[in-house]
């Protein structure tokens, strides 16, 4: 709340214009994409007629359905395995001191930080030359989990510092064995972290093409791989339609979420 001056106001206006431009550029491709998903023509400037045919085609296209299913399964498994392993690892890292701890942390960083190309290529070489793991679900799953576990570990590790660990001790003190303590105390306390890491892992896994391309082999197709093959074949509004759904779902989710939040806080008043 400092006294404003003329250059300050000019600067503010210029800044605002530039910023608006920035947002326009970020959103322009998305908007064009969404608009054309409802258009009859494959390319061009304007709509040549409103249509839902591309969405209809999406629903009837068997390959899309198959790819979607594959992606969902892979992502779901990745989330479950990663959060499980990650929670264990985070617990071990947070609670104990041991030799090689630093090495483990660095090792965990590696998959996240390496360019996906390198990981994909390395895994391909590994699967085809060393361990004869078939290229398909197994290899894709392994690749996705390898990336997701570190994510889960770090997110949950971050959560660990904010938990009151005396609750764990109290549980043991009251006679619960380790498994029960985990089930009833630790996991519920860590739940926000687990959910957060699931929220990070699921979209990543669902979306990944760079690594999956290398390890998928010829038989299995995830949704991104399907999209990739379609794009290489030429422009197609089906892709627009898929893109539109990708945007719409989280956006609607977000809007509902904010509405829910404000209603909750509104009621509290």
């Amino acid at each position, binding site marked *: 709340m400092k006294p404003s001056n003329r250059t300050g106001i000019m600067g503010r206006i210029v800044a605002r214009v530039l910023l608006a431009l920035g947002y326009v550029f970020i959103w322009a491709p998305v908007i064009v994409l969404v608009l054309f998903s409802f258009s009859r023509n494959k*390319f061009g400037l304007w709509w040549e007629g409103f249509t839902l045919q591309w969405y209809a085609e999406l629903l009837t296209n068997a390959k899309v359905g198959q790819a979607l299913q594959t992606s969902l399964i892979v992502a779901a498994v990745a989330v479950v395995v990663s959060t499980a392993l990650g929670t264990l690892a985070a617990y071990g890292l947070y609670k104990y001191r041991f030799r090689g701890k630093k090495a483990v942390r660095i090792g965990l960083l*590696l998959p996240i930080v390496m360019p996906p190309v390198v990981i994909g290529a390395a895994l391909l*070489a590994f699967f085809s030359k060393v361990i004869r793991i078939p290229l398909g679900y197994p290899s894709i799953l392994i690749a996705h989990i390898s990336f997701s576990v570190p994510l889960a570990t770090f997110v949950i590790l971050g959560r660990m510092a904010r938990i009151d660990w005396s609750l764990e001790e109290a549980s043991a003190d009251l006679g619960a064995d380790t498994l029960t303590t985990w089930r009833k105390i630790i996991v519920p306390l860590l739940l926000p972290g687990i959910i957060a890491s699931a929220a990070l892992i699921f979209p990543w896994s669902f979306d990944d093409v760079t690594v999956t391309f290398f390890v998928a082999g010829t038989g299995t197709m995830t949704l991104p791989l399907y999209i990739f093959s379609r794009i290489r074949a030429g422009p197609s509004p089906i892709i627009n339609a898929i893109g539109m759904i990708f945007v719409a779902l989280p956006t609607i989710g977000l809007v509902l979420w904010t509405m829910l939040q404000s209603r909750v806080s509104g009621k509290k008043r």
Partner: protein
Amino acid sequence: MKQFLGKQVHLPFVGPVTLWLIMFVGGPLVLIVYFSVLTPGPLGTILRTPTLENYLFLLRGAVGRVLLRTLLFASGTNMICLLIGYPLAYWIVKYGGRWKTTLLLLIVIPSWTAYLIRIYSIKSILGYNGFLNQALLSLGLISSPLELLYSVPAVMSGLVYTWLPFMVLPIYAALDGLDPSLLEAAEDLGASPLQRFSTVTLPLTKGGIIAGTILVFIPALGDWIVPLLLGGGKVLMAGSYVQMYFVGAANIPRGSSLATALTAVVLLMLYLGIKFGGEEALERII
């Protein structure tokens, strides 16, 4: 924090993950380095003859230049993302008020469209029959469509567009966590707005910048999809070659040498990053 020095109590917890990492991350990476010094054989086989040929090939010829070009592209992308992203984040934090989170989300939401689809949408806008050309034609500004795709600017735009949110997020987090009383103190002690920025804001957001750089530079370095879709065969990056050698030409040793080279660059970047910014920069990524 319990400390069981000497006892192996930590094993059941950290064990599974460590095993996994060794088997499926460490192993393959070591493998790649190993392969990079072997000779390629016919039909994608690998002969156990050690050679430095693959690396020598990198240094000379078209492929060697590609590595350099890739570094330039990645740095350029990083710079542009920084130049666009920092002011964006700064403005949102300073003037956003109630709408801070919404404004931030508005930057992030477009990145929720699948990676491929966003690149496709740029392609459809810049393409020969694409939106931009059609618009310019109908406005009469050009007489025939422009060849916007399959060029360096197209690839750069694609890279920047894809990775921009990843630069904005950590910088936003760093700026948001800045204690405003520090800036007031600086003002009280006689610092002009520019001085306040350079002596207080910038140094304290260093971690965010480094995190953003790591999140942008490294993926951009290995990206091969953007060059493929937006560059056609005309603009190639290191990742493109890796993909070609591994999948297309089945020349694993050569691909491995490139991959190893990329890895070396990344490790160097990380080392520099930690040296300048400390480990907290890495924590911020999460």
